[in-house]
């Protein structure tokens, strides 16, 4: 555990830490985790909606259903995101 500062690349910052690079990495990791969560939940919902009795492959109607389902899920996610954001703004304005 020698040299905590050496874990970070020395950059343009005044200290040993390159806060820009670190923040980029933090944001990327969070974005990846978010995308994984979205994909996992979307797969769950769309499997339930579109796959009846699982066969050997996905037939045409199932594939079409899944494609539409994924689009609708992302629409729903965006709607919920906007609605939740508005609600939070309204609550903050009251304080």
């Amino acid at each position, binding site marked *: *555990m020698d040299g905590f500062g050496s874990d970070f690349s020395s950059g343009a910052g005044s*200290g040993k830490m390159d806060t820009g690079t670190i*923040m980029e990495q933090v944001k990327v990791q969070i974005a990846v985790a978010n995308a994984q969560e979205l994909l996992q939940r979307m797969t769950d919902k769309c499997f339930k909606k579109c796959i009846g009795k699982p066969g050997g492959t996905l037939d045409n109607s199932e594939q079409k259903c899944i494609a539409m389902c994924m689009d609708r899920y992302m629409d729903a996610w965006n709607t919920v995101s906007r609605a939740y954001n508005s609600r939070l703004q309204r609550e903050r304005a009251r304080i």
Partner: protein
Amino acid sequence: MDGFDLNSSEKADASELQRMIAIEQQKAQFQAQVHNFTDVCWDKCMEGSPSSKMDSRTETCLVNCVDQLCFIL
């Protein structure tokens, strides 16, 4: 244990970093909540087979669903 003591500019960097990370954490918490709400409200509002477009009735249902969840929480 030489590397653990931060000088003053490193301390400034560290607290700025803490501040920026706290902001990203808040954003991540918001997104996690959106995932939860979408999960619940999808079941409540999306009936039957998926359609080729999101209609306004479903959209309204989702918005109401979020409001209700916020009221409950």
